[in-house]
């Protein structure tokens, strides 16, 4: 006697209960508090905000905790929540040149207006596991500059632009931008949508693509013109007031790459731009994004296409880790109907081959007789 598998409902409920217990771990150890995640796992929080496309540290921390530290799962939670939120409208463009910068470095000038500001960074630290690190012992008092955080930092690209050495910002003056979470992405896509896609894109995917451009797959001769990290004001134009009001500040990382110069019969050679902007502190992501942005602009500069990072359809269609992980993992779902269809065909073909072989034998025997 055979009883078909039933009770999917109970199985699912039990699986979720078991998962909840495992996620919590040893209950004699205190549970993670959101402030701990926000305060001590800030890079994880920044990534979840960026790729989740929603600036809310507590929500990101909530998602990270619920996901047991699986960041793509946490990004997924944030995205699924974000999509239910009402859309108020568009903010004013953020003014990153008026950023209250905690860090601002340029690889192209030794010194520049506003100065180099190393700020908080992993850079120049030796990657030795610190066995003696005690999270409960307070860190040494940071040495802050007397004038506090820097602001009013002109952009390196603007300084070059003033000398006519940098291409004009191709997006400057366009006040409406698309939104690929509201309208389906159609290809070829304009740069505003490409940038949105990249900013939401998977850090690892962009890192690999950006790296590939440096190794010769669409080389763009990049210089890190400037990387800045800090708080910018967010202004929103509410109809009731008739003017823009500041509704808060957000922390962003901005990267302006200065790339291979290009000229034409009409315009003398100028450097070209690659741009990266993400929530929170994530230099790796912002830099990768800038490299890929520039590689995707090959058409504007009559460059030879063919490298993966230049392939808009390939890059934009595969950058989203929520789409990617969903589809990869859907292979776990039952496919036995399709599999049975393949089995049926294979068996039929085997039967035919066997039948042909035996009829060939028969005819060979007949020929021999």
């Amino acid at each position, binding site marked *: 006697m055979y009883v078909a598998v039933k009770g999917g409902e109970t199985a699912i409920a039990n699986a979720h209960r078991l998962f909840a217990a495992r996620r919590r771990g040893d209950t004699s150890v205190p549970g993670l508090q959101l402030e701990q995640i926000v305060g001590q796992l800030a890079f994880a929080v920044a990534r979840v905000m960026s790729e989740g496309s929603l600036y809310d540290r507590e929500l990101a921390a909530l998602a990270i905790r619920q996901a047991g530290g699986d960041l793509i799962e946490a990004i997924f939670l944030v995205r699924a929540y974000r999509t239910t939120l009402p859309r108020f409208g568009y903010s004013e463009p953020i003014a990153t040149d008026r950023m209250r910068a905690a860090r601002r470095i340029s690889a192209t000038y030794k010194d520049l207006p506003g100065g180099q500001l190393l700020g908080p960074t992993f850079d120049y630290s030796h990657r030795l596991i610190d066995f003696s690190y005690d999270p409960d012992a307070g860190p040494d008092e940071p040495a802050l500059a007397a004038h506090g955080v820097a602001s009013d930092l002109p952009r390196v690209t603007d300084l070059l632009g003033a000398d006519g050495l940098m291409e004009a910002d191709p997006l400057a003056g366009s006040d409406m931008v698309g939104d690929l979470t509201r309208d389906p992405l159609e290809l070829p896509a304009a740069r505003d949508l490409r940038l949105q896609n990249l900013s939401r894109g998977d850090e690892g995917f962009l890192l690999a693509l950006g790296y590939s451009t440096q190794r010769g797959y669409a080389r763009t001769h990049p210089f890190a013109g400037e990387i800045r990290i800090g708080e910018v004001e967010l202004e929103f134009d509410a109809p009731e007031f008739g003017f823009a009001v500041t509704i808060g500040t957000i922390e962003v990382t901005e990267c302006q790459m200065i790339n291979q110069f290009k000229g034409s*019969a009409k315009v003398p050679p100028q450097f070209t731009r690659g741009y990266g902007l993400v929530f929170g502190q994530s230099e790796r992501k912002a830099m990768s994004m800038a490299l890929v942005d520039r590689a995707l602009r090959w058409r504007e500069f009559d460059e030879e296409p063919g490298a993966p990072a230049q392939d808009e359809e390939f890059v934009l269609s595969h950058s989203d880790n929520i789409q990617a992980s969903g589809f990869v993992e859907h292979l776990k779902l039952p496919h036995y109907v399709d599999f049975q269809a393949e089995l049926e065909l294979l068996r039929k073909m085997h039967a035919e081959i066997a039948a042909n072989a035996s009829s060939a034998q028969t005819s060979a025997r007949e020929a021999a007789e």
Partner: protein
Amino acid sequence: MTMRDLPLLEIEGLTHFYGAQLGCRNVSFDIYSGEVLAIVGESGSGKSTLLNCLSAQLRPTGGTIHYRMRDGSRLDVYGAGEAEQRRLLRTDWGFVHQHPHRGLRMGVSAGANVGERLMVVGERHYGNIRAKALEWLGKVEIDGARIDDVPNTFSGGMQQRLQIARNLVTEPRLIFMDEPTGGLDVSVQARLLDLIRTLVADLGLSVIIVTHDLAVARLLSDRIMVMKGGEVIETGLTDQVLDDPHMPYTQLLVSSILQVGA
């Protein structure tokens, strides 16, 4: 006048610029049914640009192209929609690329490569498609036993012959060729040229062939057009132009080939 007396393709003032960069300028000529025209010149002379414009693959910045359809009507090639252009390229025209991977589907069998154009025009009988593919493999001297092999397993010369079969299976009237023998060994080249010459004569094809090799032009073409710096500088019957070139540049081209030959 019969249709045969009317030009198959009429080109008037064809000009193409890539931005500010000149591709080709003010090219005009007619080509008649059964005629083979060679466009010669060094690389950068504009001959590939011209070929791409002629074959409806690159919209020129100026000028017109008219094509005489099978029913005698005269089609404004760039006035027609993309659908019509693509249909022409898949049925009544052919394009033989220098690099076989651009003209073949390297991942599908030789039979399917040849049969594709038949399927495009609506052939839905597997047996007929296969028979026709076999017939054409024979015509281009490819062993029929290779019908289910993919082009990647073919030699360079075989790939080119397969490309030709793939183009000719729908019995087109006009074939464009872009350096079809480029990159092949001399002995392989000779065999391919011989095959092309035979097929063109047997089928009464009109051909526009781009080549930098004057020997190829002499062997295949009735007429020749010499290009330099994006413009046509000399044109005429192939033997006349090659035996008695008027322009100094053509003289230089001809003498350089003679030196190599000597």
